[in-house]
């Protein structure tokens, strides 16, 4: 259901979403950090999209890992490197395949989330992108186990992402520049979580449009 062409379309879709939401990302990151997230996320996905759009890679895992490597180089901010790590670990997990099944996609997101947790020395609950991608991975695992169809799978992922973003808003930042604001961060959106939602939404865009 999800081959390299879909992955290319996914990267492209995330790029468009980041471009569209650049101002909003700058805004939320300015409130808790240095405001660069709008720039680093657009740069990461624009570069990956440009460098991979005519790739002739057929291994979907290798393709996704490569996307991560490109992002690491292009956008070495915290989120740039975390998201890069996510793609690299997720890609490694689904190597030697030309197509991802529903449970492969769940494995990809689990490895994506675990990679960020390891790299960021964090866990769910610390008001980070993890609070979006960890519940997304769980939702996908459950949907795959239930044998959900594509529509239900996507819906499960996206609603987990939105709920995660909302939950993160009520948490207190523990990492990075935001951590110095402590209690003041409660009630404000986490920039990384916001970007995480866009990644999840863009990732499933090709599946969603195939399904229409």
């Amino acid at each position, binding site marked *: 259901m999800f081959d390299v062409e879909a992955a290319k379309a996914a990267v492209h879709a995330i790029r468009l979403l980041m471009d569209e939401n650049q101002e909003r990302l700058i805004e939320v990151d300015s409130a808790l950090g*240095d405001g*660069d997230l709008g720039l680093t996320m657009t740069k990461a996905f624009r570069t990956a999209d440009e460098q991979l759009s005519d790739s002739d890679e057929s291994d979907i895992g290798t393709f996704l890992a490569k996307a991560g490597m490109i992002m*690491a*180089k*292009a956008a*070495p*901010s*915290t989120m740039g*490197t*975390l998201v890069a*790590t996510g793609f690299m670990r997720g890609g490694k997990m689904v190597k030697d395949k030309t197509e991802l099944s529903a449970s492969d996609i769940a494995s990809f997101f689990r490895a994506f989330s675990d990679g960020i947790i390891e*790299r*960021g*020395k964090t866990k769910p609950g610390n008001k980070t992108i993890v609070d979006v991608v960890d519940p997304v991975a769980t939702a996908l695992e459950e949907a795959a186990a239930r044998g959900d169809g594509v529509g239900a799978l996507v819906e499960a992922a996206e609603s987990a992402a939105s709920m995660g973003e909302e939950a993160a808003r009520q948490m207190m930042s523990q*990492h*990075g*520049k935001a*951590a*110095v*604001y402590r209690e003041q961060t409660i009630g404000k959106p986490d920039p990384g979580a916001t970007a995480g939602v866009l990644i999840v939404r863009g990732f499933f865009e090709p599946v969603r449009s195939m399904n229409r």
Partner: protein
Amino acid sequence: MMKKFLNRPEDFVDEMLQGILAAHPDQLKYVADDLRCIVRADAPVSSKVGLATGGGSGHLPLFLGYVGKGMLDGCAVGGVFQSPSSEQMLEVTKAINGGKGVLYIYGNYSGDIINFDMAAEMAELEDISVASYVAGEDVASAPKGEEQKRRGVAGIFYVYKCAGAKADEGADLAEVKRIAEKAGASVRTMGVALSPVIVPEVGKPSFTIGEGEMEIGMGIHGEPGIRRGKLLTADEVVQEMMDKIIPDLPFGKGDEVSVLVNGLGATPREELYVAYRKVAEILGQQGISVFKTYVGEFATSLEMTGFSLSVCKLDAELKALLSKAARTPFFEQVQL
């Protein structure tokens, strides 16, 4: 209004690096076809642990200014206030590995940590042993008991200096790391700022400090400090800072220390010495003796007005290492 000597703001970091490389070709070079991967001109130095650092630009002499004899072997250079990439760190690592492994010494900022960890993982894949020491000694950035959350600022100078001298002795990676940890654990820093900075690509101040106000404990990227208040006299400011620094380690009667009075960018050297006068008085009163004082710019934040005080407790081992000669484009010291 941005009053700076610049060409295109987006070229600022690379043009600065071109200037540094043009000025010090006998001391520095770049590798991997990337200006932002700076190493000693004679790298790799064989049979010596390689010391690498890295971090955002805008803090000269930090970070690349300490690459040179007796201190560091290489530095990955980021954009202004931004981490370099893990790939750049990896290139530096490969270029300075003299066969005894590489120690990363850098400040406690999450972007840097994440990238250095990634670089270490990649280096291990290339069979280079890597260890890391993350410096954090700013007492204003987290309370006692949460030392691992503290920012690394000017005090990292002592870590570079002592670890660099140890590496020169031919010590192995674990031993050099032990010295880095020991120096890092022996130093405490606190800063005060009077004015903000303008990041060239942003073009306007990222925060403000009111007329007649100062922020005690502010970080070098404008991280909020301990308190904001009306501008005090030099003596009052120093007293407040030393009252936080001394009990934190704690430093006490009979201790021998080195002091670093660090200008953040725009504060005249004259004022740093007015501040040091009070530091010396306070240390004298407490029976703490000063082995060596450094006054100048060691870790800055572009044109920020302010200064930081670092105090480093010395034992015979650290004292001997601190005393060794060093020569980098930004720091030169004869054997003491």
